[in-house]
C-alpha cells in the first residue's frame, strides 16, 4: 500500500512538474515559433539560443505584472475561475497511460475501469472556468465569451462521446490501458491494416475508425477552444473573450490551461488512435521483422524499453500538438451559427451513423 502511494505520488509529481508543465510552457513557445514560420517571420529568438528561454522570461513577466482586479467584478468567482480553467486539463492526464512500465510500475497514474468516461466527465468540467470568468468579469465581451463557451461545449461533447464508441465496441472495455493493449495486438486504430495488409476485415474496419478519428479530432479542437473553434475568446470580435478582464498570473492560468487542454487532448487522441506508447522497431535479427520493446523486459533492457515507450508517447503527442498549431494558423474562425450547425447537424449525425456502421461490421462481418 505504501509502495503504491509512493509510486503514485512520484508519477504525479514527475508527470506534472517534469513533463506537463514544461511542455505547456514550451508549447506556448512552439506556438509562437510555428506561427512565425508559417507567416514567414522569425518568432521569439532573443532569449537564449533560438529563443529557447523565452518561456522562462514569459513566466517572469507574467509573475511580475500587476495583478489587477477590476472594481465591478464578482471577486470570489473572478479569482476562482482561472483555477477552474487550469484544473480539468491536468487531472485528466491521470488516466492516460503514458508508458508501459518502468521498474515494474505501470506508467499510468490511475488505471480506472471507466477511463474514457472519466476523461469526458472531467473535460466537461473545463467549461466552468470559462463561463465563470465571463460571468464574474461583469463586462460584456467576457460575458459573451462565457455564454458562447457553454453552448459550444455542450454541443461538441456529444460528438466527442459518440465518436469513440466504435473503438470501445471493439475493445470491450473502457479502460485506456486496455485500448493500448488492444492496439498493440491488433494494430493502431487509425490504420488497423498496417502489418496485416492482406486482411480485408482490417481494411473494412479502417473506414469507421477513420471517421471516428476525424470527428473526434475536430471535437477536441472545439473542446479545447482552438481555432477554428475559438469562439469564446475570438480576439477580433470579443477582444479576448472570457479573459479580457484578467491580467498577470490569473491570465497566465487561462493561457496555460488552454495549452494544457491541448496537450491532454493530443494525449487522448494518441492513446485512442495512435497506439499510445507503442512503436514497433524494425530489426534484422535473423531476417527482417518488427520488434517491440516495453518495460517488461528483464534488466537494463526493461529500463531502456520503459523509457523508450515514454519517449514514444510524448513524441507522438508533440507531433499532434504541431498539428493543432498548423491547423490554427491555416484555417479561419467559424461563424457562431456555422459552428452550431456543424456540431448538431453534421458531426452528431456522422458519429451516430458511424456507430451503426461499426456495430454492423462487428456484428455481421467480424471473422
Amino acid at each position, binding site marked *: 500500500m505504501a509502495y503504491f502511494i509512493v509510486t503514485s505520488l512520484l508519477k504525479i509529481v514527475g508527470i506534472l512538474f517534469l513533463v506537463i508543465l514544461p511542455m505547456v510552457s514550451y508549447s506556448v513557445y512552439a506556438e509562437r515559433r510555428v506561427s*512565425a514560420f*508559417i507567416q*514567414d*517571420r522569425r518568432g521569439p529568438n532573443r532569449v537564449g539560443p533560438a529563443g529557447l528561454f523565452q518561456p522562462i522570461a514569459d513566466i517572469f513577466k507574467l509573475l511580475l505584472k500587476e495583478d489587477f482586479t477590476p472594481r465591478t467584478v464578482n471577486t470570489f468567482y473572478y479569482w476562482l475561475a482561472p483555477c477552474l480553467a487550469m484544473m480539468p486539463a491536468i487531472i485528466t492526464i491521470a488516466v492516460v497511460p503514458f508508458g508501459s512500465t518502468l521498474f515494474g510500475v505501470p506508467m499510468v497514474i490511475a488505471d480506472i475501469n471507466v477511463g474514457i468516461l472519466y476523461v469526458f466527465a472531467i473535460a466537461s468540467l473545463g467549461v466552468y472556468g470559462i463561463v465563470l470568468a465571463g460571468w464574474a468579469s461583469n463586462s460584456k465581451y467576457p460575458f459573451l465569451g462565457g455564454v458562447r463557451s457553454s453552448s459550444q461545449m455542450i454541443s461538441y461533447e456529444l460528438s466527442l462521446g459518440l465518436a469513440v464508441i466504435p473503438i470501445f465496441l471493439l475493445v470491450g472495455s473502457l479502460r485506456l490501458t486496455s485500448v493500448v493493449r488492444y492496439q498493440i495486438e491488433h494494430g493502431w486504430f487509425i490504420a488497423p491494416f498496417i502489418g496485416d495488409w492482406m486482411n480485408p476485415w482490417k481494411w473494412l474496419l479502417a473506414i469507421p475508425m477513420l471517421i471516428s478519428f476525424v470527428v473526434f479530432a475536430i471535437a477536441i479542437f472545439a473542446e479545447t477552444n482552438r481555432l477554428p473553434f475559438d469562439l469564446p475568446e475570438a480576439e477580433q470580435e470579443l477582444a479576448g473573450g472570457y479573459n479580457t478582464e484578467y491580467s498577470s498570473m490569473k491570465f497566465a492560468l487561462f493561457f496555460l490551461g488552454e495549452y494544457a487542454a491541448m496537450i491532454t487532448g493530443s494525449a487522448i487522441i494518441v492513446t485512442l488512435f495512435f497506439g499510445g506508447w507503442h512503436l514497433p522497431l524494425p530489426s534484422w535479427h535473423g531476417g527482417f521483422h518488427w520488434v517491440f520493446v516495453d518495460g517488461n523486459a528483464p534488466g537494463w533492457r526493461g529500463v531502456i524499453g520503459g523509457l523508450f515507450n515514454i519517449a514514444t508517447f510524448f513524441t507522438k503527442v508533440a507531433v499532434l500538438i504541431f498539428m493543432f498549431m498548423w491547423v490554427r494558423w*491555416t484555417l479561419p474562425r467559424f461563424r457562431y451559427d456555422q459552428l452550431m450547425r456543424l456540431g448538431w447537424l453534421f458531426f452528431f449525425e456522422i458519429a451516430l451513423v458511424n456507430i451503426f456502421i461499426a456495430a454492423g461490421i462487428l456484428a455481421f462481418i467480424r471473422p
Partner: protein
Amino acid sequence: MAITVPRPNLNWRERMYLPAIVAGLAITIKHFKNMLFGRTRVTMQYPEEKWDASLPDYYRGAPALVRDEDGRVRCVACQLCEFICPPRAIKIIPGEIPSTNRFAKVEKYPEEFDIDMIRCIFCGMCEEVCPEQAIYLRKDYAITGFTRADMVHHKEKLLEIGGVMHGVVLKWNEKK
C-alpha cells in the same frame, strides 16, 4: 448604398470544404518548411537592421520645435497646435518676451512646451496648423522611456530634436 455581394454557388465537392482545407494546410506547411530551412527571408531584424536610410521624405516621426537662423524659437505660443491636437498631447504655457530682448517685437514665446509622446499619434496636424512654421515632424520613431514622465518631451528636448530650420518664411524680420 448597400451592395449585396452574391454568394458563390458551390458544387458538392466545394461544399465538402475538405479539399480546400487540405490545400490551405499545404500552403502553410510549405511556408513553414521554407522558413525552417532558411529559404525565405522577408522580415527585417529590427534592432540590428534599421530602415533609417530608406525613410521616405514624408515620414512622420516625433514632432519637434525648430529655431530659425537667428536662433529664435520660432514658436510664438499661439496654441493652435494645442487646440488642433486630436489626442491633446500638447501643452503650452505662453510667456511674454521682455522689451529688452532683441526679439521683443514678437512679444510672445512658449514658456513651457510639452508634448506627451505617449499620447501623440504622429498625425502631423500640429505641423499643418502651425502659422509660424515652428513645429515639424522629424524622422525619429524610436521614442522610449522608463517612466511616463520620461515620455513627455519638454521644450529643450523638442528643440534638440528640431534643431535649426533654414529657408522658411521670416515674417518677423521684415525691413522697416
